[in-house]
């Protein structure tokens, strides 16, 4: 213990004393106790609300209601329902919104499938569109329309006018926000059905502004099981069975948020599979070292050489940058000035050699045509230098 430690402890205590929570521990404990009655009757808590908040909401509504009756007889004001309230929820007042967590997934239309990664594919062919009749994509992301059918397809409804895509050919829409703008877009197409595209603004996603950290991304931490990750997130995750070639490699993501990172999990794909790596592939989502998708080699090098960048110094092999000459073309389209872009994705993660390997972040990878997803099945993806 140093003098500085003691002074910091004292200042923290003094600063803490000035923070005055609205509720006391007794009030919160009582709310928890009241939950016991609800649990025994089988009432399920909404995943995006706290039970404390719900209990308090009822309490506040009752108190305000009593006061309103006593003080404002005949007052026409009715309690308001907050946007987060699920159907059937007891109406709450505006005052209770302070107790309602605001982190919710984007409100994409029901039945809309969120696509993940920098270049999600929309496949259309004789049997209809895949993955569905409505897809949600990030505003900063791209969409790749792949015509897998035997005939040339014509799609109309894009700002640039109608486009034709030959058999076994594809077109990019990148970035989506420039070409389509936020909101839902409907198309006419022939002879195959083109799905609606829902462009989700960054502002609507709780995941869009979180930085990739040394040990995780937002609520997702390296080493978590799928089950733990779902509990931390507060909702289900989708696990893609054919995400990567390895027999024990899976990609998990938040199903209704196109800004979801891709969680690379190893195992049988079930609840006990563990997160080994986290990929972030959308432009604009920074890492702790400041590297973003779309940066040039010079920009990456400038940050990699910065002393402040070496947050992972304690981890052997951290901050390793690696790229190859043959890059995937798609990411180049994000370059604002036509420069060749280096960074296709960045990630944090462990080597796949074992659960005890330390995490390292800001390992920048560049997708290659020959080995786009060489994870989980072979040697470690990054050379250590």
């Amino acid at each position, binding site marked *: *213990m*140093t*003098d*500085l*430690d003691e*002074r*910091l*402890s004292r*200042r*923290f205590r*003094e*600063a*803490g*004393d*000035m*923070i*005055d*929570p*609205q*509720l*006391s*521990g*007794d009030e*919160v*404990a009582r709310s*928890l*106790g009241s*939950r*016991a009655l609800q*649990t025994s009757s089988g009432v399920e*808590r909404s995943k995006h609300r*706290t*039970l*404390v*908040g719900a209990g308090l909401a009822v309490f506040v509504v009752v108190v305000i209601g009593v006061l309103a009756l006593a003080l404002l007889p005949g007052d026409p004001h009715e309690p308001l329902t907050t946007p987060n309230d699920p159907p059937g929820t007891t109406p709450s007042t505006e005052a209770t919104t*302070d*107790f*309602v*967590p*605001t*982190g919710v997934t984007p409100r994409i239309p029901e039945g809309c499938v969120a696509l993940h990664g920098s270049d999600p594919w929309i496949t259309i062919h004789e049997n209809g569109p895949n993955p569905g009749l409505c897809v949600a994509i990030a505003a900063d992301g791209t969409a790749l329309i792949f015509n897998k059918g035997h005939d040339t397809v014509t799609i109309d409804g894009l700002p640039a006018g109608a486009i034709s895509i030959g058999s076994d050919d594809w077109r990019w829409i990148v970035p989506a926000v420039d070409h389509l703008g936020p909101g839902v877009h409907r198309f006419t197409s022939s002879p195959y059905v083109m799905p609606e595209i829902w462009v989700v603004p960054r*502002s609507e996603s*709780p995941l869009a*502004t*979180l*930085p990739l*950290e*040394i*040990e995780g991304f*937002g*609520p997702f*931490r390296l*080493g978590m099981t799928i089950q733990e990750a779902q*509990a*931390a997130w*507060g909702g289900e995750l989708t696990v893609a069975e054919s995400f990567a070639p390895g027999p024990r490699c899976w990609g998990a993501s938040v199903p209704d948020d196109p800004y979801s990172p891709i969680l690379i999990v190893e195992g049988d794909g079930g609840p006990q599979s563990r997160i080994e790596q986290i990929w972030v592939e959308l432009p604009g989502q920074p890492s*702790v070292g400041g590297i973003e998708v779309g940066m040039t080699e010079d920009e990456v090098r400038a940050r990699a050489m910065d002393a402040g960048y070496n947050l992972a*110094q*304690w981890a052997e092999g951290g901050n390793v940058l690696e790229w190859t000459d043959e890059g995937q073309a798609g990411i180049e389209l994000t370059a604002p000035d036509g420069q060749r872009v280096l960074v296709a994705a960045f990630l944090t993660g462990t080597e796949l050699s074992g659960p005890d390997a*330390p995490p390292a972040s800001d390992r920048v990878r560049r997708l290659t045509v020959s080995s786009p997803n060489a994870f989980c099945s072979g040697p470690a993806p990054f050379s250590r230098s």
Partner: protein
Amino acid sequence: MNHVGVGSDEVEALARTEYERLVRAVTMACGSLTLAEDAVQEAFARAWRRADEGGTFSHLAGWVVTVALNQTRRVHRGDSSVPGGPSERHSPNSDRTEAIALRTAVAALPTRQREVIVMHYFLDWSISMIAASLDVSEGNVKNALFRGRRSLAAQLSLDEGAPR
């Protein structure tokens, strides 16, 4: 650290005795009292439910704080609140100035350093307990603590001093 079963009554007891202190800690880590209160309440609710379902905890308070911090990261949209909002207790100006300076300096730290610093200096948790709570190595905690401590000393113009 071993995980042990905890009853829902123990969660209630922790809420009764530690809720306000944990809210203060999370407030200093995330910068928003409102967000911190939501997050700690949510964490207690989850802990209560987990205990009710027979779940185990390595350290209950650590679990609550970690879940609350995760929650604040999840809902945080980059709108860092200015320390010293209207719901904060009135204090002499000099104390308040010092407190705001401290919280501003803490807010400038990277997320992990911020959390570790608050756990260590405000909650007075040991390095091993912080490591267990955050599920990281002790080396990671020491590293974050060292860097955070150095940054705070520089920002607050405090001498680092020698170990006693």
